[in-house]
Each structure stands twice: as C-alpha cells, then as structure tokens.
C-alpha cells in the first residue's frame, strides 16, 4: 500500500475512494494521510468517515459529493467545521445528488463530456452548483438536466479478490466502482485475497474490473474496516457510532489520527492494535452454489 500510494497518488490529484457503505478502502485513506498528501480534490458519493479523517488531517482542498453524513448516526464533524467556517483552511465544495454523482462517473467511464438525466426540476441544487446544466433533446425538444463527466486522477477500489493481473471480482453492493474505475487515469485495486488467475477465469461474469485498466494491486486484508467486506467481515457499526463523539472534538480526533493512523506503519499494525476486531466482526458462512460454464 505504501508503494501504491507513493506511486499513484500525487499532491493536487482528484482522488476517489469509492464504495457505498460496502468495501470502502480505509487502509488507502490512512496511507494517504500518513504520506501527508496535500491539496487533494476528494470525490465520492458519501464522504463517510474516511474523508472526514482526510479532511481533518489536512489532505483535502475540495470535496465533490452528494451526501456527507455518518450513515444512521449523524454528522461528519470535521467536514462540518470546515464548511461552516469553524476550522482553519476551509474546504471548497461541489455538490450533486447521488444520481448526479453516478451520472458524472458514468460519463467519465464512457468518455463522454456529459450525461443526461431527468432531474433537478424545482430544486435549488443547480443554483448552488452551476455545473448542473441542461440540454435539449433532438427528438422531443424537451430540456433534460446534465452533469459533466468526472475523470479522477486515481480511483481506489477495495474488493474481495483479484488475480495478480488486476482482474477484480466483487459481490454484494457494488455501488459505482466499475464506473469510477473506468473513468479514472489510474486505478489501484486493494483486495482481501489475491487469487490465482484460474479462480477468476472459473467465474468470469463475477469480474467487475478488468486487469487492463488497473495500475496496481495491493493485498490488504481487513483494509476496509470499519466498512465491511461481504463474506469476509461485518460492518463495525460500533465504530461508526463512536465516530460521532471522536469527530465532534478536534483534539479527540487528532488523538485518534495519532494513535490509529500516524503511529501505525500499516493496516497490519492497525489490526494488531485491536485484536478483538477480527474476532467480533468475522463473517459467518453463507456460500452460494456454483453454476455451470460448460458447453
């Protein structure tokens, strides 16, 4: 992970660590904080705790998003302090709805400059964000909303497994990772398991990201904690609840970053500090059956 971040994430980059609740690569975010990257434009639908931490650590110049909260708990307080003008430095924001962000990644992935959607009538979002525009349908003459393509410098995707060639399989919630990866200049895949190419080839419909678009593969078990990996470990809801009080207090947040980010060398170190996590969160077995690919 150290090498991957060092090679593929640069100061000033637009960085996407995607994943909707599921498979959010906290390990990559922590490594970016440790390597003290600066002036990043952080983009994802739901900034979640990881971007709150990166904002608190001073990595971010700008945030592009559609829902900035602590899901099911409350606020992202580092984000709020920055936007409400209560912390130094401030934070530029560019705001859409989920559909708008999904459409931005879809346009980026298809290398189109925009994506049309039927949306935003009556809302104040286009006033707050003049990049939401409209286009006239050449068949019906009606106006449709548009969003511009989003093409990140680097996208980091966490997945259950990949082979050494970067062919990546995931299951459970897959969010907008495929679109974000195809939209991106560089793609880092971080996996729970590195598997033989034959495992990938035995079930090709399960492949979400092909190796031909991947810049680097990192093996990093538990790399998504406190997010989760279906079939590997559960979401650490307790930590999401705890984040409310940690992030509310800037000193407490700084101590958290010291203890769990700056003072550990890597994700293995992070897990060693908290041996109970692996016991508490390990997934039970609910295997799917195989299907026949023969002819």
């Amino acid at each position, binding site marked *: 992970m150290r090498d991957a971040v060092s090679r593929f994430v640069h100061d000033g980059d637009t960085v996407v660590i995607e994943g909707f609740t599921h498979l959010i690569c906290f390990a990559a975010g922590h490594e970016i904080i440790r390597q003290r990257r600066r002036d990043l434009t952080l983009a994802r639908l739901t900034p979640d705790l990881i971007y709150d931490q990166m904002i608190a650590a001073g990595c971010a110049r700008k945030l592009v998003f*559609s829902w*900035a909260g602590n899901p099911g708990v409350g606020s992202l307080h580092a984000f709020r302090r920055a936007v409400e003008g209560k912390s130094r430095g401030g934070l530029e924001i560019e705001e859409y*709805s989920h*559909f708008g962000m999904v459409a931005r*990644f879809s346009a980026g992935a298809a290398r189109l400059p925009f994506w049309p959607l*039927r949306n935003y009538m009556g809302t104040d979002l286009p006033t707050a964000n003049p990049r939401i525009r409209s286009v006239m349908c050449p068949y019906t003459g009606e106006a449709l909303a548009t969003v511009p393509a989003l093409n990140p410098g680097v996208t980091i995707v966490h997945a259950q497994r990949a082979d050494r060639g970067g062919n990546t399989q995931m299951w459970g919630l897959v969010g907008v990772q495929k679109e974000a990866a195809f939209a991106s200049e560089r793609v880092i895949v971080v996996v729970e398991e590195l598997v033989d190419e034959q495992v990938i080839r035995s079930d090709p419909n399960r492949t979400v990201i092909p190796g031909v678009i991947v810049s680097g593969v990192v093996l990093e078990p538990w790399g998504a904690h406190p997010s989760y990996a279906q079939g590997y470990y*559960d979401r650490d809801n307790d930590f999401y609840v705890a984040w409310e009080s940690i992030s509310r207090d800037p000193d407490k947040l700084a101590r958290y970053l010291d203890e769990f980010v700056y003072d550990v060398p890597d994700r293995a170190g992070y897990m060693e500090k908290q041996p109970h996590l692996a016991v508490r969160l390990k997934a039970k077995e609910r295997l799917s059956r195989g299907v026949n690919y023969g002819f």
Partner: protein
Amino acid sequence: MAAVAARELRDGEVVFVGIGLPNLACNLARATHAPNLVLIYESGAVGAGPERLPVSIGDPALVTGSLMVCGMADVFQLFLQNGRIEVGFLGGAQVDRYGNINTTVIGPYERPAVRLPGSGGAAEIAVHAQRTLIVAKLSPRAFPARVDFVTSPGQRCGERSRRELGMPGAGPVKVITDKAILEADPATGEMVLAALYPGVTADEVQQGVGWPLSRRPRLAAVAAPTEAFARPPRAPARRHVRRCLLRAAS
C-alpha cells in the same frame, strides 16, 4: 411515526427505502401486513429480506438473501428514472407548506449556520417516485412556511406546479408527523391537516407549523400502533411480491 408510516404501505408495492425511520417503517410493514413489499435500497439491494434490522441502507444483511443486487447506475436509471418505484420515503430538517424538503443547509448556502448532509438520493426520489411520503417531527423550526433550500421538490416550487416543471411522480401526498398526518391538497398543492393522533388537538398541530394550516372538512383519527407494530421485526417472512401474470409451462 414508523408504525403510522408503515400503514401507508400496501402489500406488494415497490418501495424505495431511505435511511433511518423509513428503513424502520418498511421493515415493520414487511413484518406485519405487507409481507410482499419489495424493498429497494439506493445501495443496490432489490427485494431485500434482512435477517436483522439494518443499521444503514448499505448493511450487509440487505444483501444476504436478497432477490437482486445491482449497481447504483441501475438503481437510479433503470428503477427510479424508469418509473418502477411506487413509493418513496423522505425526511428532512425542514419541510414547507408545499412539501418542499431541505436536507442541505440551514442559512445561506455559501455561509451556512448548519451544514446538513445534502441530497443523497432524495432529490431524484422526490422527482420520480410515483408518490412520496414525508416523515418528520412537528416543530416550527422543522415546518417553516418556506424552506431555506429546496433539496427535494414538493407540490409547488417557486410559483410552478410539478406538472409545469415536468416531474413524472405525484410528489409528497402525505406528511406523517408525531402528532398528525398532513395531506397535499389536490387543487392548491398545500399540505393540509388530515388526521390527528389520539389526544392531539388541531391547535397543537398548528403550533408546530410555520404557516396557517388549512384542514380537511373532516379530520380522521390516527389509530394507535398495535402490539405487532411496537416490536422490531425478527426473522421476517421471506416471501415477496408475485406480480407475474403467467407461469405457463409451454
């Protein structure tokens, strides 16, 4: 409120489930009178049958044993924009006279007093769901005459109706609060008092609303939650909607 909201769902409907109370209401309904409710989460879980009450709309329990998991581009384009969602739930920090919702900022956008999470999928749910239900606790701060920022459009935005603005869905038809149910007036689009919880007066409701509240000629009474509704669901029925018209074998 969850119990009252749950009752608004009809068995077999396709419901777009939001975070928090709507999540609770939908899972309550499915565990009681609407076992064939099809729950669709913006996270991509379709026909979910969670074995535990999901903490977030991306909970792994929504995936295990669901009918389908798809990407979010499909959720928004193929389900929502396609018009397949019959009911959408919305909540928010502010709800106004026409059912416009604000989940973005309190105060001016550029210098907010309170920065809220933002739209998430709410803006498009408000546009596309065949009907939406708003769930929010009454208070003058939460129910101003006009929201500070329209995140999710209601029955009228500015001076224009949904139809004039080209919105496919019917918009917010009801606002379920902790004291009363408001309904959209078909003629004016205004939210008017339609039903009271047991022991609540119309005056109390008016005190929690920042505009002069009209009322239906006859107010209905909201029934108290039953036993079944008071308990969270446990190992709910794993049946689902059967809307297939035909299953002929040849």
